[in-house]
């Protein structure tokens, strides 16, 4: 009898889920077909890297690269190795960034996708290396680079090494610029701190998913630092768009088309 209840609960969980924002109960099939966007309130739920790649690029076109490298606990930082191990087993990925080559309507693009589920998408040496390699691949082949950002910032467990990734990835953007390879960044929830204050903010074109959190300092820090009233939509994509730091807010279902149009138009210097 107890087993029966559990089975029924399981079946319910398979068929339904609750929106993380409006809390409405949703049909899972409808939710998945809608790219994990709530049909009721439009909340864009966070995606893992694999799903993001499936939603965005030509079917089966993605070829992962940079799989031969991994994070190391250079500083012997408290609990870093165990947190890494946990994140690796949770996500089945060696890091928060999945990088490689893909196609958008037949045209090759260099791609990196960040996964917030892996230690908050924080940028350490490995993430920095993967972003840099992605931008270098785009520069070498003179093709567009597309990076989906999702990060709380630098990975403090790697100390100064992780701060240096801000410089390294920004240098790689300069390389793309100098050969005329377009770099398109897509901000997803959240894009913060060390990632925002480096390569992400100097992309040729910056798109964002609706209502993504985008900011330099944690909201708590900003509020402490200021006595003025904080706008309700502070550090959201909509607020950042109004202040002129991103180009467009693009709903998930339109992202693929917008990206392929941009890649076709900006092309890359031949």
């Amino acid at each position, binding site marked *: 009898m107890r087993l029966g209840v559990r089975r029924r609960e399981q079946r319910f969980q398979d068929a339904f889920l609750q929106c993380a924002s409006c809390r409405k109960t949703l049909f899972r099939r409808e939710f998945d077909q809608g790219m994990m966007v709530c049909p009721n309130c439009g909340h864009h739920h966070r995606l893992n890297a694999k799903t993001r790649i499936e939603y965005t690029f030509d079917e089966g076109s993605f070829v992962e690269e940079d799989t031969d490298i991994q994070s190391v606990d250079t500083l012997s930082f408290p609990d870093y190795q165990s947190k890494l191990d946990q994140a690796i087993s949770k996500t089945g990925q060696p890091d928060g960034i999945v990088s490689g080559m893909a196609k958008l309507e037949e045209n090759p693009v260099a791609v990196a996708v960040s996964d917030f589920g892996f230690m908050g998408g924080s940028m350490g040496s490995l993430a920095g290396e993967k972003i*840099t390699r992605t931008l270098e691949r785009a520069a070498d082949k003179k093709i567009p680079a597309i990076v989906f950002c999702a990060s709380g910032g630098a990975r403090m467990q790697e100390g*100064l090494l992780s701060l240096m990734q801000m410089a390294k990835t920004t*240098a790689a953007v300069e390389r793309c610029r100098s050969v005329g390879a377009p770099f398109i960044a897509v901000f997803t929830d959240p894009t913060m701190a060390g990632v925002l204050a480096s390569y992400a903010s100097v992309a040729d074109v910056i798109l964002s998913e609706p209502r993504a959190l985008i900011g330099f300092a944690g909201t708590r820090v900003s509020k402490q630092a200021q006595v003025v009233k904080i706008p309700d939509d502070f550090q959201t994509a909509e607020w950042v768009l109004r202040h002129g730091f991103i180009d467009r807010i693009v709903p998930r279902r339109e992202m693929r088309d917008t990206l392929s149009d941009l890649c076709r138009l900006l092309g890359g210097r031949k």
Partner: protein
Amino acid sequence: MTQPKSWKEWEKPLIELDEALAKLRERSVTATEEERHKIDETIKASEQRRDKYIEKKYANLTPWEKVLVARAEPRPYTLDYINALFTNFIELQGDRLFGQDHAIVGGPAALDGQPVMVLGHQKGRNIQERQMRNFAMSKPEGYRKAIRLFQMADRFSMPIITLVDTPAADPGVESESRGISEAIADSMLAMFEVKVPIVSVVIGEGGSGGAIGIGIGNTVLMQEHSVYSVIPPEGCAAILWRDASLGPEASAALRLTAQHALEMSLIDGIIPEPFGGAHRDPIEAATLLKEAVQKALKPLLKQKPDALKAARYSRYRALGKIG
């Protein structure tokens, strides 16, 4: 044992010794011949005690003690060094977009006759100046002014020297609304674009994005007791252990000292400081800094513009530890 929270608290015995010595010296001036002899002997003994104390204290500073020394109020700041190292410094102001940020100062100057562009974070000496300079926490305007000066230096083939000394970039709502992240990123980008030599020196606090925003260089140096960190130790402690008072423990974990940075090959050298730290002898500290900057600049001045840019790319491309 509870850890001291400030440089003043940590160096209190030394500050008291210095004060007592100053009083003795004053008395010695007005004393009679006989008294003076006695006072001078006391002075000599106190000086020895003081030197022993400094020697012991500074022989093996913990990472947290380095943080305290790097933040010490009497430590020489950017303008102190600019005035000591260069001649004809002319401060240039404003970003031509929004405003003038006093947290970053910069302009052309001459280093032994060689025109250079020098720029750095500036802390304040008293309450009013600290407020005016926002505790050396630059807003977007500061970084955009820096970009303007970097590009000007490139146009006129002037080597760039930056002095890094900030707790962090300004985290306020105003700075967010004017794109502090973009300003920092764009400033780094500008430093990768220029084809003139860049020497960057951390002279106190190298506070995360705010520091690296003007901290890119062909050669990057740190003063002996300066620190460079991805996050303030107190902030790291608050995240890790939900207790901002564990800054000393976080400082050790973050390995934020110049010595650690050199060990990890993230910087190119350490500039020695005078006995007891730069604040005990600012003139000597400036001399040592000047020697180091000149030494770093000399080979760079012989390199071709394109080679300088390429070398900067290679330097940063190599940074990171992966398995």
